[in-house]
């Protein structure tokens, strides 16, 4: 049979259907402490490298440049500024649900005064004309907190 015999043929696709993989991600010592801080005290904690002075949020065990273990915790407060933002308009598939995300949604990078890295979260404003890089924002906490990054419901411009 010649190659041409393919031409008339229907090209098929194979579908995965709902393909869900469940993971039980251990938060480890540092992220656990951070999340428990959010849950129990509504505090946003960073961690400081005593060697170079950098403060990291989210907190982690190791300062990359110094390769030293860190253990000095810093309360960053609940207010920062917008470092960058995106108003997401494309309803891409949410890998948590397999369904499209709700749009518009504003993703922001929050810079805290006392931290050298930035926290990613949502902003409650989706009109990009009303969002300013450098604007002050405050974390709004949920009533019912469980020890996740979503214990902060969103950030809001002050």
């Amino acid at each position, binding site marked *: *049979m010649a190659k041409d015999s*393919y031409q008339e043929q229907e090209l*098929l696709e194979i579908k995965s259907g*709902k393909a869900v993989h469940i993971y039980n991600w251990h938060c480890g010592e540092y992220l*656990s402490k951070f999340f428990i801080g959010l849950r129990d005290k509504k505090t946003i904690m960073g961690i400081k490298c005593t060697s170079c002075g950098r403060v990291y949020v989210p907190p982690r065990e190791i300062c990359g440049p110094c390769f030293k273990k860190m253990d000095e915790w810093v309360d960053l407060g609940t207010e920062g500024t917008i470092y960058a933002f995106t108003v997401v308009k494309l309803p891409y598939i949410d890998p948590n649900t397999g369904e499209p*995300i709700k749009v518009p949604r504003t993703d922001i990078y929050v810079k805290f005064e006392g931290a050298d890295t930035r926290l990613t979260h949502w902003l409650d404003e989706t009109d990009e004309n009303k969002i300013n890089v450098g604007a002050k924002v405050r974390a709004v906490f949920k009533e019912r907190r469980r020890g996740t990054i979503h214990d902060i419901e969103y950030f809001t411009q002050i």
Partner: protein
Amino acid sequence: MDNETWFEITEKDGLLIHQGVINVPYTWAAGKVASKFYTGLKDKQILGLHCTKCDIVFVPPKKVCHHCFSELTNWVPVSNIGTLQTYTVIHYSEPDIHPFNKPFAYGIIKLDGASTSMVHIIADTDLENLTEGMRLQAVFKEKPEGNYLDIKYFTPVAEANHG
């Protein structure tokens, strides 16, 4: 704003474990070769690709012979009946992915006229009686969907069919 997906959180030894998922659906192009194979199954015909250089009939078919790197174009029909090479009986369940309840069997079956073998499920028989070398036949799905399970499973050839 309520965009949070609620997953289980457990606390153990003062530390947290977050449950979560990756839930992304996929659509894979079968390509011309596999499409033709599945189109054949709709007519209860199992097709292989013959490497004329190496004289190997690949079932399921593939576009390139892994021995000589030739692109294969010589389609040949093979039998729905073949010989069991090896098998295993599965004693655990994985409900999200297993198409049958435990215990069930996987087998590697070389169809008459094929040089390579198909991995498939063996069902509708007493699993205690499976033996290597036994003759099995494909059981086709009533309403084919254009995928590997259009052959529902393999089952021992009925006595009357023994040649």
